[in-house]
């Protein structure tokens, strides 16, 4: 299609600006209100610290906090990667035959019904006191919705396309690779968006139980020593980490699979 005429383009820019400006403005107002209420009512910092206190206390320890943030990011990304690597073949297997689905599904549901917080200390005993149990907990928290959405995508292919593949006498493998998996891309991405958010949760759970670094570890230790503003700082960093990683997934989809965006809106 031809490029959009100028006025429409301008209007689109204005709308984009509003889309960003409005939530940012709301956030700033929220922070200011928070600060004012803390000061006006003299809320003690060990209950709810003011934003300014969170800022200064976290900044004072900028170096160590950065190390903690990097440690958590690493756990999140490793766990996320593990869930992607495991979920893809698992979803393919589940959709391949009802027998496999009937065998694997109950096991999957079992892994989901176990409380991960309860499992974490046991994993530490099995896997040792290192990064591995944290990554495994992250993976266990994140992978399930990903398996479900990939499986849903693989089975959502219009029957006509499968018939077209069969009419071309394409092998099952080629049908999977050239029709089913590409068709599942929008579904895979909605699963990845859920998985990346859950990965942050999983990493923190892992760090609560066993870690010598990481933002989850920082929250546990700083609250133990009544450095509550620092714990809040870690909390803010965790949410920022979650938002940034989520947006990274969105950008990857927009750059590499622009065609999937439209259909994605229908799948969420």
């Amino acid at each position: 299609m031809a490029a959009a005429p100028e006025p429409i383009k301008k209007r689109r820019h204005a709308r984009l600006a509003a889309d960003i400006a409005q939530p940012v403005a709301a956030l700033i107002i929220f922070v200011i209100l928070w600060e004012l209420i803390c000061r006006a009512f003299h809320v003690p910092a060990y209950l709810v610290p003011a934003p300014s206190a969170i800022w200064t206390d976290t900044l004072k320890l900028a170096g160590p906090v950065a190390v903690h943030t990097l440690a958590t990011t690493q756990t999140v990304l490793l766990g996320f990667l593990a869930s992607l690597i495991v979920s893809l073949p698992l979803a393919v297997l589940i959709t391949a035959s009802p027998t496999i689905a009937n065998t694997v599904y109950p096991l999957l549901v079992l892994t989901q019904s176990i409380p991960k917080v309860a499992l974490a200390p046991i994993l530490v005993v099995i896997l040792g006191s290192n990064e591995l149990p944290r990554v495994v907990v992250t993976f266990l928290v994140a992978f399930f919705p990903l398996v479900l959405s990939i499986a849903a995508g693989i089975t959502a292919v219009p029957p006509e396309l499968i018939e077209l593949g069969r009419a071309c006498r394409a092998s099952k493998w080629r049908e999977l690779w050239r029709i089913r998996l590409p068709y599942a891309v929008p579904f895979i991405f909605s699963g990845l968006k859920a998985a990346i958010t859950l990965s942050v949760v999983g990493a923190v759970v892992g760090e609560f139980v066993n870690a010598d670094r990481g933002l989850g570890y920082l929250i546990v230790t700083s609250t133990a020593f009544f450095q509550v503003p620092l714990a809040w700082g870690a909390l803010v960093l965790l949410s920022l980490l979650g938002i940034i990683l989520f947006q990274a997934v969105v950008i990857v989809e927009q750059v590499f699979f622009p065609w999937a965006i439209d259909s994605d809106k229908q799948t969420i």
Partner: protein
Amino acid sequence: MIVLDHVAKTFVTRGGEQVAAISDVSLEVRRNEFVCLVGASGCGKSTLLRLVAGLVAPTGGRVSIGGATVTEPRDDTGIVFQAPTLLPWASILDNVLFPLDMMRKLDASGRARARDLLALVGLSGFESKYPRELSGGMQQRAGICRALVHDPDILLMDEPFGALDALTREELTIELMRIWQERPKTILFVTHSIPEAVLLADRVVVMSARPGRVAEIIDVELPRPRDFDMEARSEFQDATRRTRELIFGGRSARAN
């Protein structure tokens, strides 16, 4: 060319029940003939098309093309579905080339043929567009190109214009007749629309439902090339009236 010899197809439902989709259908379609299958929903006309395509196997009788029994999908048939079902991630050109690619027969001559076909249906210049950028009618034109890209002798069309609006439908009907005139093929065309069937076909196969069987085969005597003005002619009127009578048993043909 296509011979159906006492063909039957029974499906087994999930509950283990046997349902006869088609029973004892015999039909012969000549080379480059345009045959339309009409009938109420559930009369097995889509199943018949899939039997000829080799996508389903008959439970009785024999389907053959050029004397050879159909046991699997063949290279000399192309299919157009009701929905265009183009691949959303591929350009229009790649969509048209998709069957060649799946058959591992993609070469320069295939690409040239795909471009020719797109030109034939008026989609030159849209090769690198994506399906979502095209209207429903344009998508179905691309779907027809996709079915023709490996130059099949037989074109199987399963209610190809069923999902389109009435005006686009008339436009594509005329278009299909032009394509068929320029590149003669044997066409088996499934439709719900009696006027569409009569206007397009050399012969209209009227099917009755449950189980599906051939009620009657009507020869359409209209001269070619045809257009929608011919709907006023008596040959057209006779053929549509007869088809209606067969489908509705004469009861509702003059209900209004």
